[in-house]
C-alpha cells in the first residue's frame, strides 16, 4: 500500500497537459458519479431506521452484493493507480504487491469472516471484548480501530488531493485543498445520510465502474498485442530500456540487504494486515449469515484477483506503449500511468477516443477514492459510537437512537479531522501511513482476534498487552524509521533520528503483538467466568447460535 504516497509526492509536476484540456469531460463524468451516488445514499438513508440499518445495512445484503462492496472497499487508488504505476516503472516488483494483497484474503476467509459474523454485532470490538472485561478491551479496540482507519484515511485524503489535482491539471495549493475539502464533504454525506446501507451501495457502484474501466483498457491492450502475453511482456521489457531484468524481481526491492528485509517485512504486513482492517471486518456484518459471509469473501477473492491480474496488463501495457520519460514526467512515481495508457490506447492525446478513455479512467479513480474514504469514515465512527461512546462512556446505557446519533456526529468530526490532516499533510510523504495501517492492523488487531476466537487461555490482560503492544510498537518503530526522518523521501527530510532501518515495522511488531498476547495471558489469571464465556463464544462462533 505504500504506493499511495507516490500519488502525493511530486504534484507540482504538471499533469499530462492534455488532462487539463479534457477537464470538462472528466468533471462531467465525476459529477454524474457524485450525483448518482448521493441520490442512492438519500434513498438508502430513508430506509435506515435503526442501529442495525446504520451499522450493518440491516444485514440484508446478499453474499454477491457484499463481495462486490468488499472489493470496492479494498481496491483503493493505491492498488488501481499505484500498482499499475509501479509495474510500469519497476516491472515485476510492482506485481509483488498485488500478490500479497490477494493472498491475504485467505486469512480472512479461513479464520476470521465466519466466526466474526457469528459472534459480533456491529464492530471489531464486539468480538475482541466478547469474553473479556468490556470497558478496557472495548477502549483498546476502539482506539486501534480509529488509529488504523485514520492513518489509512489520511493517506487516501492526501492522495486524493494530489491525484485529483494531477488529473485535472490543477497545480495551486488552494485548488488542491478545495478538492480535499470537497472529497471530505461528500464522504461525510455518504456516511451520515446513508450509513452502512448507503455506503455499501456506493462501494458496489464504484466496484462495477472500476472493474468495467479496467476490463476495457485491458482488452484494448491485449488487442494491440494480438492477445499474446509473451509479446506484451517482451515489448514492455524492450520499451522500458531495462531489458530482461524488467521482468524479473529485484529492480525495486533487490537493491540492498536492508531493502530485501524490508520487503519481507512488508509482505508479512500485507498478508496478515487485511484480516485486521476494521473497515473490511465490519462488512461481514452486512449479510444475514456466516455462510453468506463466506460467500462474500469468495466473491471478493474472485473480483479482486481478476482485478489485480488486469493491473498487470495495465502496468506492462503502459511500459510497452509509453516511454518511461512520459510516465515519470507526468508523475515521478508512475501514478498517472494508467490514465496515460488509457489515453494512448484510445488513439492518443489528440483523438476523441483518447480523450474519452482518459476522462473515464480519471473519473473512475476519483470514484475509487471517494468510496474508500467513506468506508473508512464509517468504520471509525461506528467504532467510536458503539465501542467507546455506548459501551465505555455510557456504560451500555445509551439508547439506540443516541448511539446512532453519536455515530453520525463522530462521522462529521472524523471527516473534519481527515480534511484538516489532509490539508496539513499535503506535502508529507504518506508512505508510512498506509503501510503503518496494515502493520498496526496485523500487529494489534489480528493477534487479539485470533487468540479470542481460538485460544481458551486468552485473558483480558493478554488482549490489552497485544492490542496496545502491537499498536505502540508499530507506531514507535515507524516514528524512528526512514519514513519519518533522515531521507529525502521522509516526512521530515531535514532531521534525522531514524535508527530503525526498515520502512515497514511488521517484521518486528507483528511477532511482538502475538508474543505479548501470549505472555500477558500466561502471566495473568483467567477471570473465573472466562471458561464459560469462551464456551459460549466458541459454540456461537462455530454454529451461529444466538448470532445477530
Amino acid at each position, binding site marked *: 500500500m505504500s504506493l499511495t504516497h507516490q500519488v502525493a509526492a511530486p504534484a507540482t509536476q504538471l499533469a499530462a497537459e492534455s488532462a487539463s484540456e479534457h477537464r470538462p469531460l472528466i468533471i462531467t463524468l465525476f459529477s454524474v458519479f457524485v450525483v448518482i451516488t448521493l441520490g442512492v445514499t438519500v434513498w438508502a438513508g430513508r430506509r435506515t431506521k435503526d442501529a*442495525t440499518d446504520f451499522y450493518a445495512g*440491516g444485514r440484508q445484503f446478499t453474499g454477491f452484493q457484499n463481495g462486490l462492496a468488499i472489493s470496492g472497499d479494498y481496491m483503493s487508488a493505491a492498488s488501481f493507480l499505484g500498482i499499475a504505476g509501479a509495474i510500469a516503472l519497476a516491472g*515485476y516488483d510492482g506485481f*509483488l504487491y498485488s*500478490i500479497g494483497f*490477494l*493472498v491475504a*484474503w*485467505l*486469512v480472512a*476467509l*479461513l479464520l476470521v469472516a*465466519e466466526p466474526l459474523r457469528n459472534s459480533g*454485532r*456491529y464492530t471489531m470490538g*464486539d468480538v475482541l*471484548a*466478547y469474553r473479556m472485561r*468490556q470497558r478496557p478491551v472495548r477502549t483498546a479496540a476502539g482506539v486501534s480501530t480509529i488509529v488504523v482507519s485514520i492513518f489509512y484515511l489520511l493517506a487516501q485524503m492526501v492522495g486524493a488531493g494530489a491525484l485529483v489535482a494531477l488529473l485535472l491539471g490543477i497545480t495551486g495549493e488552494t485548488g488542491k485543498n478545495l478538492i480535499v475539502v470537497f472529497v471530505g464533504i461528500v464522504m461525510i454525506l455518504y456516511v451520515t445520510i446513508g450509513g452502512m446501507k448507503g455506503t455499501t451501495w456506493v462501494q458496489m457502484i464504484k466496484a462495477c465502474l472500476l472493474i468495467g474501466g479496467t476490463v476495457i483498457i485491458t482488452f484494448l491492450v491485449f488487442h494491440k498485442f494480438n492477445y499474446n502475453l*509473451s*509479446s506484451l*511482456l*517482451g515489448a514492455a*521489457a524492450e520499451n522500458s530500456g531495462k531489458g*530482461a531484468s524488467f*521482468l*524479473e*524481481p*529485484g529492480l525495486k*526491492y*533487490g537493491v540492498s540487504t536492508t531493502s*530485501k528485509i524490508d*520487503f*519481507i517485512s512488508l*509482505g508479512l504486513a500485507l*498478508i496478515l494486515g487485511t484480516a485486521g482492517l476494521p473497515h473490511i471486518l465490519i462488512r461481514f456484518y452486512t449479510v*444475514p449469515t456466516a455462510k453468506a459471509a463466506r460467500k462474500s*469473501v*469468495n466473491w471478493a*477473492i474472485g473480483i479482486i484477483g481478476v482485478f489485480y491480474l488486469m493491473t498487470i496488463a495495465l502496468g506492462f501495457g503502459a511500459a510497452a506503449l509509453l516511454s518511461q520519460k512520459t510516465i515519470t514526467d507526468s508523475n515521478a512515481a508512475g501514478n498517472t500511468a494508467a490514465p496515460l495508457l488509457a489515453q494512448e490506447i484510445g488513439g492518443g492525446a489528440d483523438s476523441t477516443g483518447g480523450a474519452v478513455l482518459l476522462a473515464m479512467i480519471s473519473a473512475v479513480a476519483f470514484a475509487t477514492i471517494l468510496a474508500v474514504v467513506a468506508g473508512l469514515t464509517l468504520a471509525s465512527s461506528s467504532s467510536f459510537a458503539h465501542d467507546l461512546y*455506548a459501551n465505555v462512556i455510557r456504560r*451500555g*446505557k445509551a*439508547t439506540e437512537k443516541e448511539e446512532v446519533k453519536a455515530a453520525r456526529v463522530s462521522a462529521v468530526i472524523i471527516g473534519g479531522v481527515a480534511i484538516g490532516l489532509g490539508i496539513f499533510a499535503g506535502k508529507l510523504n504518506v508512505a508510512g501511513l498506509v503501510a503503518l495501517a496494515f502493520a498496526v492492523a496485523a500487529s494489534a488487531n489480528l493477534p487479539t482476534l485470533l487468540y479470542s476466537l481460538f485460544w481458551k487461555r486468552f485473558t483480558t490482560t493478554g488482549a490489552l498487552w497485544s492490542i496496545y503492544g502491537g499498536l505502540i510498537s508499530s507506531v514507535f518503530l515507524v516514528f524512528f524509521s526512514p519514513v519519518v526522518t533522515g531521507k529525502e523521501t521522509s516526512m521530515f527530510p531535514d532531521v534525522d533520528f531514524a535508527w530503525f532501518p526498515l520502512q515497514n515495522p511488521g517484521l518486528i511488531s507483528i511477532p511482538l503483538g502475538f508474543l505479548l498476547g501470549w505472555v500477558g495471558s500466561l502471566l495473568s489469571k483467567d477471570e*473465573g*467466568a472466562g471458561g*464459560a*464465556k*469462551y*464456551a*459460549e463464544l*466458541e*459454540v456461537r462462533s*462455530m*454454529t*451461529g*447460535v*444466538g*448470532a*445477530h
Partner: protein
Amino acid sequence: MDTAPEHASPGPPGPRDYTDVQHSAEFGELRRGYRSFVFPLTVGFIAWYLLYVLLSNYAGDFMGTKVVGNINIAFVFGLAQFLTTFLIAWWYSRFAAVKLDPKAEALKTRLEAENLQREAGGGIGHQTDRLGKEKGELAGQEDDA
C-alpha cells in the same frame, strides 16, 4: 445487566452455560473437523507465500529463467500464487459446505430449540446478550439473523 452472568441463584436458569455443549462429542467433532482442515492449510499457504517472497529476494537468477517466450519462472510463480489462492478458497468453501455446515446447522437448531424451551419454562431466564443491549426486544435474538 449485560455483563454480569455469574449470579449463582437457584431456581430460574441464568444465562445458558455452553460448557457442556463445548465438551460434547458433537461439537468436538465439528471443531476438530474445522481446525484440522483450516490450521494446516493456513500454515501451508503462508509458507508458500513466504517461499515466493524469499525466492524473489534471494534467487533472482532462478526466477529469471525463461519458460515460454518472455514468460519466466518469476511470472509463473506469481500467477501460481493467484491460482492457488483461488483454489484454496474454492476447496475450503466446498469442504465447509459438505463437512461443516450440516453439523453446525444441526447443532444450532438443537440449541435454539433448547434455548426457547428454557425461556418458556424459566420465566426471566432470557439468554442475555452481553455484547449489546437488547432493549425492548425480549427474545429477539434471531430477529435479524
